[in-house]
């Protein structure tokens, strides 16, 4: 039962990731700007990526029986 | 007065031995080899007691006994059932159909004689 919840959350995260990292949401970040001196678009990609990993880690680790 | 005993059994050798035995004891003896003959002999000779074998052709001893008990003229006849079957259910069936006593084969001749005398004296 607990495991089902984990799987559902991961599935939701998967869907979110797939949406965020593809058209059109991805194009939102494509601006000629910098954050802390780093170009926005590549930075955004990596940050989103790290966020996905972090959330996955949280879901998976907290489900440890 | 000599009392009459009917012996009904389909085994001829048993008939021979029982006939000899009863005659030796001083009884009058009638013989029957199957259920129908038994009923006929009962009606004709009116014995005081019948030695009735259960396993007989035409009519079994149980049927003869039931018919006997149902007959006004015969219902007081003493019935001693003889059979090779000795299971509880058979004994119960025999007594249930109206027999007064039940003996399993092979029986002791002394036992049989004693029983017969006992039954007849009780009646008298």
């Amino acid at each position, binding site marked *: 039962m607990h495991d089902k919840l984990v799987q559902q959350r991961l599935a939701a995260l998967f869907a979110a990731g797939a949406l965020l990292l593809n058209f059109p949401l991805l194009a939102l970040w494509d601006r000629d700007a910098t954050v802390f*001196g780093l170009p926005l678009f590549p930075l955004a990609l990596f940050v989103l990526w790290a966020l996905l990993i972090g959330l996955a880690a949280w879901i998976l680790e907290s489900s440890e029986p | 007065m000599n009392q009459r005993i009917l012996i009904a059994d389909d085994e001829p050798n048993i008939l021979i031995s029982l006939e000899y035995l009863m005659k030796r004891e001083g009884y009058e003896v009638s013989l029957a080899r199957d259920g129908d003959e038994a009923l006929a002999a009962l009606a004709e000779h009116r014995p005081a007691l019948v030695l009735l074998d259960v396993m007989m052709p035409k009519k079994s001893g149980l049927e003869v006994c039931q018919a006997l008990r149902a007959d006004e003229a015969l219902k007081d006849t003493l019935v001693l059932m003889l059979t090779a079957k000795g299971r509880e259910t058979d004994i119960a069936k025999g007594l249930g159909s109206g027999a007064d006593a039940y003996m399993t084969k092979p029986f002791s001749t002394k036992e049989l004689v004693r029983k017969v005398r006992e039954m007849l004296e009780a009646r008298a």
Partner: protein
Amino acid sequence: MLSVPLVVGASFAYLALLVAVAAFGDARARQRRSVIGNAGVYALSMAVYCTAWTYYGSVGRAAGSGVWFLPIYLGPTLAMLLAWSVLRKMIRIAKAYRITSIADFIASRYGKSPLLAGTVTLITVVGIVPYIALQLKAVASGYALMTTPLGTPLAAPQAWWHDSTFYFALALAGFTVLFGARHLDHSEKHEGMVAAMAFESIVKLVAFIAVGAYVCWGLFDGPTDLFARARAVPELNALLHLTQRAGQKFAYEQWFALGLLAMLSVIFLPRQFQMMVVENVEERHLRRAAWLFPLYLLLINLFVLPIALGGLLHFGRGGMDTDSFVLSLPLSQGQGALALLVFIGGLSAATGMVIVEATAVSTMVCNDLVMPMLLRTRRFGSRAGGDLSRLLLGIRASAILAILLLGYAYFAIAGEAYALVSIGLISFAAVAQFAPAMLAGLYWKGGTRNAAFTGLLLGFALWAYTLMLPSVAKSGWLPADYLNNGPWGIALLKPEQLLGLTGLDNLTHALFWSLLANVGAFVAVSLWRPPSAREASQALLFVDVFQNPAAGPVFWRGRAQVRELLPLAGRLLGAARAQQLFGDYARQRGVAGIAQIPPDAQLVHFVETQLAGAIGSASARVMVAAAVEEEALGLDDVMRILDEASQVRAANEKLQSLDRLKDDFMSSVTHELRTPLTSIRALSELMEDDPDMPPAQRTQFLHIITGETERLGRLVNQVLDLAKIEAGHAQWSISDVNLRALLEHALQTTAEMFRERGAVAVLDAPAAVPSLALDADRMTQVLLNLLSNAAKFLPAEGGRVDLRLCGRPTGLRIEIEDNGSGIAADQQALIFERFRQGGDSSNRPQGTGLGLPISRQIVEHFGGTLSVRSAPGQGACFTVDLPWQAPTTTTGEPR
């Protein structure tokens, strides 16, 4: 540049270190103190996904098109989110059914089909050889870069026996054999290999980060400085955005396709399947690895863009081969040590890939391609002597060598840079064809073997047509004409614009068509015909694996013998190991020893599973089937077997009724025995009581007693006889019997009996009679019984018995007809029953009531029939029919 001995020496030293790590891992595994039993190592071993392509190709791609190197790593991240569900199911299945490769998985799922196994293996080999060539190429050019002065053109490719890459390929083959083909039975896994891969993942990550850090802070003043400088250059700035050229639409579908492709490849590449599924030690490790592995991917990709931009800034565009920035940048600054470290990192990545991939593919080639073919040549059935394990290992080592040689050949022949760069993705698209069959197989019970086969074939064909062949054509090996105008000028069949679909890059286009055909065919063929019994059974085992703890076999029928299966297992796994396995199994079944193991379907499944770990499930099934003489199973059989389960209840009831019948028989027997006893006892007592009994009377009584005793004896004998015949314990001595002679003999025996009764017995038989296979004594018993029965019922005068023998189409017929009193219709069936006697009481002392039942049993034992035809007052005719051909069951069977 660095000296050749230094580079070569360092390379060998590193590879030796890898071997040492592997040996260490294996040694600890043998001591049961596994070093790989934790999630971190598991996650690191998955990172074999990052090959030399990551080192060289990613940077090159970034330098060419910016962020377009990323989907290859974003896809796997997303895939790992679903790993906890999907991958865990695969691991559970693989463990339960001893599946050791993708080919094994697909073949096993769709009915343990050797055809599918072979097909998947071939597709894998075709798809993977180019990828291996890519690794060789990467290491070769890296080595060339390290050993030639910077800026000078690299040496032209030489003849292969001068080509150091060739020897490198050979060396790699040797190392791979060391890692992956030393022992069988994958349940022991390749712990050493996993340990070594985890180690090399660390090495390549460290090396890459080192060069990345060097570029950022060594060549520039940190990332901000680097990016600021890059953004100042318009072309470089473009690399930081989705659209490289102004006005160009972002190819979203290509981005998506790349991501999807990578998502599938991270599981279905042979090396990935090997590491993630086969080598998995504990399922729960997946929980942590599912996010640790994406984290690794993120870390190793952090510096790709900086390195690419840094290289472009440093060398200017077109100055240096962009693929090799990771080496050329440190080399240009004289950082030889760092360059060597990076080279080792790249080498590590390449060798990791080759070792695992070649091991996995060689396993498939051995188990699913070579072994089934060998088995079919009948030489290697279970009758073959000798230890098969060494043969299997030999086949695997040869396969590894062959794969590497093929990789080198591809590298040498298709030297065009263009073909190789995109090869990685082409290989991805090839293994993606496995996805529909495998994923559907996990969740849908309706898939069939033919559907999987058709889907694979169509997908592979379209992949080859739209992707593989064009790439070969583009590197000059095929006329480009067919590419531009379609084969035979048919525009609709243009490989990169099939059916007029334009606007897609070639990869997306190929992926679209191949997957469409694959999935479409799979679904269509699956729905066309329902799964067979075996497919349905396997579907249950796979799809419901989480509900199926014991994972026992369902549908099999055959005769298993431990004494055949144990040596078979011994031949493949080694005698000691087989002994140990069977001993454990016996304990598990709760029996005293191996010899007491019940030879049932569960045993067969157990042996199949164990062997599958060594030779693949398809081959294991064939070998066990050969040993067990399995019968093919149809859907009806399956239904019947299912019915049998419900019939157990019915059988139980039948047993109880039989029990009751036995009681009746017992009571009949006791009744029959007591009857003569009664006379014997009564008469004996009468004689005892009366010593003065007249002698004549005494004589009569004694005569009766004697007769009754004899009767008793006869009865006992016949009861025993009947019981023996019915239980099948009777002894039958079959010989060729002349029935005419037998009848004459029987008449002779009974002649006296007939004369006593004033009757005649007449024989009517042809002079020559074919003999039958019978038991002479028993047949005589029957004849005597029938004759004496006839005699009993003859009239007092003029009695006649006719004995007739005649041949008929179906067999011989004996008729014994008397002119006696006949048998009433209702009695005719009764007389064959036990203890029933016909006629009146004058016959009782002779008969036992068992003669006819016994006679009938005897006659029926020979396949014949005993029947009677009679009417009261018109005599009786007993007929014995005996067939020409005796029934196939020779010993008596219980009725």
